[in-house]
C-alpha cells in the first residue's frame, strides 16, 4: 500500500514532525504551498512524541546501549545529479538527542491472582509491592524493559487476532473499572450525567456544552474523572471510603502492560500558557479544533519537606489556610501593583528579583511562592526578568481557569499532529518511515534544488526544513548541543498532595536543594488527562542537566515519593515504575550558521522552557524566511460555515477568507487563495471571519466570570 510513489515536485520539503517543523508545514500548506512532510520514524512528533506504555518500552529499547542503530542500505544515487549540482548527504543514523536512559520498576511483576479477583478495600491496603525488580541497579537497567517487550509482543499478537472477541475478559475488566469509578462518581454525586472521560467531551452532550466542539480551547474542559462506563453511568449509593484516604490499589507491572494503551507518555514535559504563543496560534489558525484541553488545576511547591499549594487566584488567596490575613493582604497588594511598572522596580534593574522581593517585605512564605512558583525564577534571576515572568503568569491567569496553564488531553504529542492534520487538510502530503538521503545543491547559487528520498526518488523543491537530528554533525556550527535536560517519568499510585478531587493536574516547583543546583519542575497528570490508567498518576520531572538525569533527579524522587531508597515516607505516593533520560536542550542548539544551502532551514528540538515560545517563534521565523509576504497561519475556514449550495458560490466575506476550489489529483495547491471555488463538485460559501470575532468575544465573556485576582483590585 505504501509502495505508491511520491509526486516529484513540491514547494517545501520538511523533515521531522516535531512541533516547530509541523507548525511550519501547516503554515506553508495553509497559504497554498505544496508541502511534503516526512519523518523517518514510524510515529509522529519525533522528540516531542508521546507513547503508550508499551510504545515507550520499545522507545527505551531503541535508546539504550546495545541497540542497533537503524541501518540504511548504502546507495549511490549520484546518477540523479544534474549539471552543476552537488550532493549533501543527510545523517542517516539517528544521531539521537537522548542519552543515559535508565529504567526502574518498583512494583511486583504480576498480580497476585486472588487479590485481583477479590480486589476488596482490605486487600488493597497492602503496601509491600516495592523492593521488586531493578531497584538500585545503577547502570541503565534495560533488563526489565527487554524481557517485557518480548512478552508484550506476544500479547499484542493475540489481541490483534481476537480483537473484540474477548467478551469474557472485557466483562471482568469492566467490573474492575466499575469499582474504580465508584469512587470517582462518589466525588461528584450531583453530576451523574457527566460523561466526560473515555469518550471525551464530544459525546452526546445533549444541547449543552457543545461549544467545546467548535473551539475546544475556549473551554478548557473541566474533566471530572474517567467517564463512567455505560454500565456504571449511574451513581450508586455506597458507603464511600473517605476521600482523603483513597483506596490504594496494587498495580502490578503486568497491569501497566495490559492497560498500556491508556498511557500517553510525553518525552517533553511542558504546559501551555493560556495566553502564550502556542495557545494564541492554536486559536488563530483554528488548529485548536483538533485537540481538547484540560486546566492545570493547582500550582504546588515543595518546601521544608512538604508539598504546599500556591495560592494564585483571588479565590485561592482568600481560601488559603497557610496564609495569615496580613500575608493575604500583602500578596494581593503586590500582585496588583506589579502589573504596572513602578519606579521602584527600576531601582532594582540588573539586581536579582529576590532582592526586589525582599525589599517588599513580604515574608518568607510569600517570597518563596513569588520567586519559585509564580516567577519560576532562581535566586540570581534579574528583577526585570522576574517581573516579566510574574506578569506573564498573571496575564494568563483566569483565562480558562484558576491557573495560567492548560494541558492537552492525550499528551503534548498531540499538538504537532494537530498541525500536521491542518497541513494535510490543505494538501500537504505525509509519509512516515520515510526520509531524505541527500540534498542536491546547485553549486553556483548555493541553493538546494531537489532532494533524493530514501528510495532514490528525485524530488524537486524550493525550500527544505530539517530537524536538527537530520543534519550531519560535521555541518553543524557546534558538534554537540552545549546544554542538556534531565528528565524523569514516574508512574505513581497517588498524588503528591491528596485533595478532595483525585483528578488534579498539578505543576510543582521544587527549588534547588543546594545553592547552584538545578530547580526541578514537576508536572503531575491524573487519568482524566488521558495520559495514564485509572488508579495511577503520571509524573514528569524536568531540570537543566548538571550531571546524568538519574543523578540530578533521583534525589528529588526519593524525597517526594516512596521508593525502595526512601526512608520513612509513609503517606507519600509510591513509584511503580520510572524512567530517567537526558535530552538535548533545543534552546542550546544553533539553528543558524550551518554549512548548508541558503534555502535549507534548521529547527532545533524541544527546549527546556515551560511554555512553547521557543518552538513557535522558531517556526514563525522560518515561515517568514520562506514566504516573507504571506500571513502566518491565517484561520482555516470553519467547516460549519461552509455552505454547500449546489450551483452558485457567493462569498460575501471572502476578501480575506480564501476560497479553495476542489482541486484535482495530487500535488495540488498552487495558487491557493485566489481560485474561486468554481471547479466541479460542491461550491461553498465561507463566512468565517465574522463568526470568529464573535466567538472570541464570547470566550472573553466567559473568561471574565472565571477571572480572578489581578486588575480588579
Amino acid at each position, binding site marked *: *500500500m*505504501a509502495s*505508491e510513489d*511520491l509526486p516529484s515536485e513540491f514547494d517545501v520539503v520538511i523533515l521531522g514532525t516535531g512541533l516547530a517543523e509541523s507548525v511550519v508545514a501547516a503554515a506553508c500548506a495553509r497559504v497554498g504551498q505544496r508541502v511534503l512532510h516526512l519523518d523517518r520514524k514510524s510515529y*509522529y512528533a519525533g522528540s516531542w512524541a508521546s507513547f503508550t506504555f508499551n510504545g515507550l518500552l520499545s522507545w527505551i529499547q531503541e535508546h539504550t546501549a546495545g541497540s542497533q542503530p537503524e541501518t540504511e542500505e548504502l546507495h549511490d544515487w549520484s546518477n540523479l545529479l544534474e549539471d552543476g549540482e552537488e550532493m549533501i548527504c543527510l545523517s542517516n543514523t539517528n544521531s539521537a538527542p537522548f542519552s543515559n536512559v535508565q529504567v526502574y520498576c518498583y512494583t511486583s511483576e504480576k498480580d497476585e491472582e486472588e487479590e485481583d479477583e477479590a480486589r476488596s478495600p482490605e486487600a488493597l491496603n497492602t503496601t509491600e509491592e516495592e523492593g521488586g525488580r531493578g531497584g538500585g541497579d545503577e547502570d541503565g537497567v534495560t533488563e526489565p524493559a527487554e524481557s517485557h517487550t518480548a512478552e508484550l509482543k506476544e500479547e499484542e499478537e493475540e489481541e*490483534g487476532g481476537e*480483537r*473484540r*472477541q474477548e467478551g469474557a475478559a472485557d466483562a471482568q475488566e469492566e467490573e474492575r473499572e466499575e469499582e474504580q469509578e465508584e469512587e470517582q462518581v462518589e466525588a461528584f454525586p450531583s453530576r451523574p450525567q457527566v*460523561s466526560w472521560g*473515555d*469518550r*471525551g467531551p*464530544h*459525546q*452526546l*452532550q*445533549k*444541547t449543552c456544552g*457543545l461549544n467545546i*466542539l467548535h473551539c475546544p480551547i475556549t473551554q478548557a474542559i473541566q474533566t471530572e474523572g474517567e467517564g463512567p*462506563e*455505560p454500565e456504571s*453511568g*449511574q451513581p450508586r449509593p455506597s458507603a464511600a471510603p473517605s476521600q482523603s484516604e483513597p483506596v490504594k490499589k496494587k498495580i502490578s507491572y503486568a497491569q501497566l502492560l495490559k492497560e498500556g*494503551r491508556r498511557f500517553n507518555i510525553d518525552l517533553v514535559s511542558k504546559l501551555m500558557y493560556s495566553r502564550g504563543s502556542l495557545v494564541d496560534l492554536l486559536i488563530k489558525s483554528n488548529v485548536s479544533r*483538533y*485537540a*481538547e484541553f484540560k486546566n492545570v488545576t493547582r500550582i504546588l511547591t515543595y518546601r521544608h519537606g512538604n508539598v504546599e499549594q500556591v495560592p494564585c487566584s483571588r479565590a485561592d488567596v482568600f481560601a488559603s489556610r497557610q496564609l495569615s490575613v496580613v500575608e493575604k493582604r500583602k500578596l494581593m497588594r503586590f500582585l496588583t501593583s506589579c502589573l504596572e511598572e513602578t519606579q521602584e522596580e527600576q531601582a532594582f534593574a540588573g539586581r536579582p528579583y529576590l532582592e526586589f522581593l525582599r525589599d517588599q517585605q513580604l515574608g518568607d512564605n510569600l517570597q518563596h511562592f513569588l520567586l519559585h512558583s509564580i516567577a519560576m525564577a532562581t535566586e540570581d534571576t534579574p528583577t526585570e526578568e522576574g517581573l516579566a515572568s510574574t506578569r506573564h503568569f498573571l496575564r494568563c491567569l483566569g483565562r480558562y481557569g484558576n491557573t495560567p496553564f492548560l494541558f492537552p*488531553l*492525550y499528551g503534548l504529542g*498531540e499538538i504537532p*499532529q*494537530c498541525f*500536521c*492534520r491542518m497541513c*494535510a*487538510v*490543505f*494538501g500537504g*502530503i*505525509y*509519509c*512516515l518511515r520515510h526520509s531524505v538521503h541527500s540534498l542536491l545543491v546547485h553549486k553556483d547559487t548555493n541553493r538546494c534544488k531537489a532532494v533524493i528520498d530514501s528510495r532514490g526518488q528525485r524530488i524537486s523543491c524550493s525550500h527544505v526544513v530539517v530537524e536538527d537530528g537530520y543534519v550531519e554533525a560535521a555541518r553543524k556550527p557546534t558538534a554537540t548541543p552545549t546544554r542538556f535536560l534531565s528528565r524523569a517519568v514516574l508512574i505513581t499510585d497517588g498524588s503528591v498532595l491528596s485533595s478532595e478531587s483525585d483528578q488534579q493536574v498539578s505543576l510543582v516547583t521544587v527549588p534547588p536543594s543546594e545553592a547552584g543546583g538545578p530547580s526541578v519542575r514537576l508536572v503531575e497528570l491524573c487519568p482524566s488527562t488521558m495520559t495514564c490508567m485509572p488508579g495511577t498518576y503520571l509524573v514528569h520531572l524536568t531540570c537543566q542537566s548538571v550531571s546524568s538525569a538519574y543523578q540530578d533527579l533521583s534525589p528529588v524522587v526519593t524525597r517526594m515519593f516512596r521508593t525502595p531508597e526512601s526512608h520513612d515516607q509513609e503517606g507519600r505516593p509510591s513509584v511503580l515504575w520510572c524512567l530517567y533520560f537526558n535530552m538535548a536542550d533545543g534552546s542550546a542548539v544553533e539553528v543558524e550558521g550551518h554549512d548548508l544551502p541558503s534555502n535549507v532551514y534548521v529547527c532545533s528540538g524541544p527546549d527546556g522552557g515551560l511554555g512553547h515560545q521557543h518552538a513557535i517563534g522558531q517556526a514563525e521565523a522560518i515561515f517568514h524566511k520562506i514566504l516573507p509576504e504571506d500571513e502566518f497561519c491565517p484561520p*482555516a475556514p470553519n*467547516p460549519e460555515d461552509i455552505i*454547500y449550495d*449546489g450551483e452558485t458560490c457567493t462569498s460575501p466575506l471572502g476578501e480575506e477568507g480564501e476560497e*479553495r476550489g*476542489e*482541486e*484535482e489529483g*495530487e500535488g*495540488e495547491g498552487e495558487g*491557493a487563495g485566489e481560485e474561486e471555488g468554481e471547479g*466541479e*463538485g*460542491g461550491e*461553498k460559501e465561507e463566512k468565517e471571519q465574522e*463568526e470568529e470575532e464573535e466567538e472570541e468575544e464570547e470566550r472573553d465573556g466567559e473568561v471574565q466570570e472565571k477571572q480572578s485576582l489581578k486588575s480588579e483590585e
Partner: protein
Amino acid sequence: MSMEDYDYLFKIVLIGNAGVGKTCLVRRFTQGLFPPGQGATIGVDFMIKTVEIKGEKVKLQIWDTAGQERFRSITQSYYRSANALILTYDITCEDSFRCLPEWLREIEQYANNQVVTILVGNKIDLAEKREVLRQRAEDFAEAQSMLYLETSAKESDNVEKLFLDLACELIREAKQNTLDNNDTAPMPGEGKTISYLSCCSLN
C-alpha cells in the same frame, strides 16, 4: 451557529485505504453529489449534516482522512474522541479488504474503547468487477463485532442508510449511557434527513 439547533452531536471518522471511496461517501451524503474522478479534498476538514431521528435533531460531523492514509501516516489524534468509525473498503479491490486487519489494529490502539465501528464495502455499482464476496465480508465483520453494509456512493445506494443507521446506533448507545428510558431509543431505519439536500429517499 446557535447551540439550540440540534439535540445530539456525533463525530464520525472515515478510514480505509486510499481510493476506496471515503470522500465520495461523505460528499454523496452531505452534498448529494458524486464528483467523478475527484481527488483529495483540499481545505475541508470535516462536513456537517443534520438528520432527524425520531424527532430529535442529530448533527453529524463527518471527518475524512485528508489523504494521510495514502502512505499509512494517519495521525493518532484523528481517532481521538470519534464516536463512530466507518471502515471502508472497495468490493472490487481485494487488497483494500486485506488491509482491514491493519486498520483494526490502529483502531484498537488509538480509538476509544466504546467507539461504534461499521464496515462498509463500497462501489457495489461495479458488481461485475467484484473481488470480495459479500459473505466473506459479512463473516469478517461479524467476527469483529462490526456492523456491515454495502454501498454505492455513485448510485447513492445505502449511503443515507449508512449514516442514519449509524446515528440511530449512536443515539441508542448514548441513551443507554445516560440510562434514559431505553424504549425511547430508535431502531435502525427510523431516521430521516432533514437538510434541504434530502433528495434521496431513505432505503
